[in-house]
């Protein structure tokens, strides 16, 4: 953790310098100024490991858990992702949002785990069934009747069950699109796939979802 503290210390200095640059650039065009302020904010966010964890840990963990189906592995990958992001924060160019950049790192870390064969994707349904029930019970209850809540829980469980049946690529792309709200182009670029390939994966995933969730879709 000594290195991390040192990195944190250095990172603080860099944020100050960035803010210094922002003051110098304050006479520029408002749009440029706004973009620079946004970037400065992101860099500042990246410089503080605690802030990075606070703002992004749950989202990355959710993505990796739903993608791999393994909560323990999701913890490990989330931790590795945030650490890699922090250590490699100099390489963040601001071409995409910080969330998208972090999701890309999480996908790479997951791929590394997949290649090394350190875990098996998607354990048996029995092993994860408890998590699904538990997850479904975390639905917000404000303003929802008990009956609607029961129905909503069923829908969550059904959608999760469908995701389990998808291939890793289909599931990951589905989550990138509908949970991470990334565009098809962003997914295509991040995964190194053609736009049409991404589209095909999404079509297959949606077909499976539609067949499971019934005639309403």
């Amino acid at each position: 953790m000594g290195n991390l503290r040192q990195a944190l210390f250095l990172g603080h200095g860099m944020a100050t310098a960035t803010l210094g640059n922002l003051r110098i650039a304050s006479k520029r065009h408002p749009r440029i100024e706004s973009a620079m302020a946004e970037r400065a904010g992101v860099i500042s966010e990246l410089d503080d490991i605690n802030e990075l964890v606070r703002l992004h840990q749950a989202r990355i963990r959710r993505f990796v858990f739903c993608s791999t189906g393994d909560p323990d592995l999701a913890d490990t990958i989330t931790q590795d992702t945030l650490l890699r992001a922090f250590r490699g924060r100099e390489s963040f160019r601001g071409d995409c949002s910080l969330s998208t950049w972090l999701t890309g790192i999480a996908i790479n870390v997951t791929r590394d785990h997949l290649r090394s064969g350190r875990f098996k994707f998607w354990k048996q349904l029995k092993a994860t069934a408890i998590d699904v029930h538990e997850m479904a019970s975390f639905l917000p209850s404000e303003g929802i009747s008990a009956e609607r809540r029961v129905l909503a829980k069923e829908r969550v469980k059904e959608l999760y069950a469908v995701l389990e049946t998808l291939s890793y690529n289909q599931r990951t792309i589905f989550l990138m699109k509908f949970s991470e709200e990334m565009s098809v182009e962003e997914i295509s670029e991040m995964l190194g796939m053609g736009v049409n390939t991404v589209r095909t994966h999404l079509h297959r995933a949606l077909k499976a979802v539609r067949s499971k969730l019934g005639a309403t879709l």
Partner: protein
Amino acid sequence: MTPTYSTHLSEEAFDDVLIGLGSPESEAHLAACRDCRLRVNAFHADVALFNSASMAWTENQPVLLRPTARKTFHRTRLAFVSWAATAAALVGMAVVVWHHDGPVTPSRATPNVSQPADTEAQIAQDNQLLQAVNAAISPNDESPVDEYKLFQKRHSHLKTHHK
């Protein structure tokens, strides 16, 4: 009053709308067709429920801190070093055993082991003991064969031959 259509969006066109790649015709149909719009809204509502539940669940799970990659690397390196040391020890033992049970070599036949130097008293004692042994085993009685002096002849023959 929203018109109802006898034909709705095809599955592919519907999925393209969900993906965000809907054609202008699909978008126009969606704007006008209440049924298709309800289907799209139902899908997004289900996904929103799933996202909300999974996020709330994730936020409530205790985070298990694990050793970082660097620590894992150190652990792996330590394990490698220990395995290498064990292997080296085993190889060393195998070499020793092989030398012990292996073919007799000149060095094995004449081991280069330093012996303590014999003292003169010990040498004299050993000589006395050897003489006593010789006296004990040497025949006192003359053999019947001695009268033929075979051994003397043989010894003299050997001496002449050597000369």
